[in-house]
């Protein structure tokens, strides 16, 4: 049954809460390339949602379609129940977008950049002046509001772009790699601000920094080759990686000899030699006792359970090869 967008919600014929973002079989094809392939996604309101994927996975195409900058080839997408094909203007009125490029106007001062954006949103002067004062203060840019963005550091420019995206108090904020190119301090400042917005609006974030997704997002989607390949919380994704458990065994000597021994065991699915350590992947944690028995008398210094990171999940799903 096709998802009933706005009308159902307005008439109250459905008790289902309208998701902030919903896509159904969303596909975008260029000549000889499928950037999005039957992509299904649902993002609930108020969530901080992270989208991960290697270069060329289709993240930017998805954001461009959802922000109405681009038309899909087939499939459907709804923002707050509004069809992106027919309700572009209304959708753009309720979303804020922080694109990969700063796209600030270098011939306007920081404040003038915000004023222009407010006028494009049809805000009245009194309202936008008050809101601009608030945001400049919040972003620590009040003292520099009469300066041109060219004179700002990368972090300040990024904060100004975020302020611009928040000016009209959007219900849904798209952040396309918001901290790329920022130093750690500026990155932390942006993270703090995103966290402070949690709950007040839905945030859709794409990033290359897995730590960023782990720190900020309630739910994470991993996509590759235009397809959604995993979806869940960080914890769920780590759990779904497989039942396998990885231990690091540090030996005083004879590392290669013990590696050969363990490799011959059925419960060991993978083994990697790292200098004086062995990284042993077991099919399940119960296999550990067999390993300990096999290593009886071996010069073992330590056996450590290796925690899975989101990066492990990402690499296991998308591969370790470098993308063009």
């Amino acid at each position: 049954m096709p998802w009933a967008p706005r009308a159902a919600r307005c008439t109250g014929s459905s008790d289902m809460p309208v998701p902030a973002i919903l896509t159904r079989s969303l596909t975008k094809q260029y000549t000889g390339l499928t950037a999005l392939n039957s992509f299904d996604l649902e993002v609930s309101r108020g969530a901080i949602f992270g989208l991960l994927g290697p270069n060329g996975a289709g993240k930017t195409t998805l954001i461009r379609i959802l922000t109405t900058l681009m038309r899909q080839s087939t499939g459907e997408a709804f923002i707050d129940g509004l069809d992106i094909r027919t309700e572009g203007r209304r959708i753009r009125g309720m979303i804020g977008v922080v694109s990969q490029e700063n796209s600030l106007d270098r011939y306007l001062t920081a404040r003038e950049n915000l004023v222009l954006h407010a006028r494009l949103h049809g805000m009245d002067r009194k309202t936008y002046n008050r809101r601009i004062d608030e945001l400049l203060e919040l972003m620590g840019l009040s003292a520099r509001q009469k300066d041109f963005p060219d004179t700002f550091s990368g972090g300040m420019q990024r904060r100004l772009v975020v302020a611009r995206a928040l000016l009209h108090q959007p219900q849904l904020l798209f952040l396309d790699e918001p901290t790329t190119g920022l130093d750690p301090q500026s990155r932390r400042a942006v993270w703090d601000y995103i966290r402070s917005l949690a709950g007040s609006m839905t945030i859709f974030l794409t990033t290359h920094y897995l730590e960023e997704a782990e720190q900020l997002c309630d739910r994470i989607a991993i996509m590759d080759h235009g397809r959604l390949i995993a979806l869940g919380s960080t914890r769920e994704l780590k759990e779904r990686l497989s039942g396998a458990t990885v231990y690091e065994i540090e030996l005083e000597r004879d590392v290669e000899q013990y590696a050969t021994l363990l490799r011959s065991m059925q419960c060991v699915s993978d083994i990697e030699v790292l200098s004086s350590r062995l990284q042993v992947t077991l099919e399940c944690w119960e296999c550990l006792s067999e390993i300990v028995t096999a290593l009886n008398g071996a010069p073992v210094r330590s056996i450590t359970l290796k925690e899975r990171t989101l990066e492990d999940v990402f690499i296991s799903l998308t591969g370790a090869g470098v993308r063009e």
Partner: protein
Amino acid sequence: MIMRGSLAIWMRDMQVLRRAIFSELVAVVAYPLTIYLAFGIGMQSYIGAVEGSPYSLFIAPGLITMTAVNAAYNESVWSLWFHRRVQFTVESYRVTPISVSEIIIAKICTGFTHGIIKGCAVGLVIFAITPFRFPMEHLFNYLVFLIPGSALFSCAGVISGTVMDKPETIGKVEAVLVMPLIFMSGLFFPLSSYPADVLPWVRAIPTTALFEGARRALVSGDMSTLHVLQVSVSAVVLFAAAVGIFRRKMAE
């Protein structure tokens, strides 16, 4: 169509122009004024009268028109290219609740305003420091040409700025297409210089109608309805084309 977006972007462009008005005008006045002094004054005694007018009087209206249309073209083409390809501001406009048409209409209006302001500035300077004079009542007739003429070139600039992604291509088109169209439309010589069998083709070009019509309007007060229509219809057609091409480009 709600034109809020067009107004906001046009106001932004005027704010930027206001900041740099002095340097803009100095740059824009220098070129036609040099041509006027070199050809109009320097060559006058060698050339004598053209179609009954002193040579300096013959070329002055064309120089003013050239300044206006060049300014309109250049502002539109470079502004659109810069905002689209360098600053990405067009993209930041497109995620606000305005239409693509509003953006392009703003850019056409900006180019047109630049053309009118800079054309008038050159006219005033030529009027102030040279013996070129015209009856003030002819000014209205002249503006009837200058306004659609600036709009025409502004639309042409928008089309170039939309379809061309490389700045060197923009420069080439200007050198190969725009400047020849201006220079061959009777700016420095009477159209009667063309061979008889070529003349109808030259007259069919809207820039010829613009420069020829504008000169006659300013010098002798003649108002050629055919010329006005030729320029105005071309401007309307190019406007529709500019909006359509920009919309298609943005949809890619």
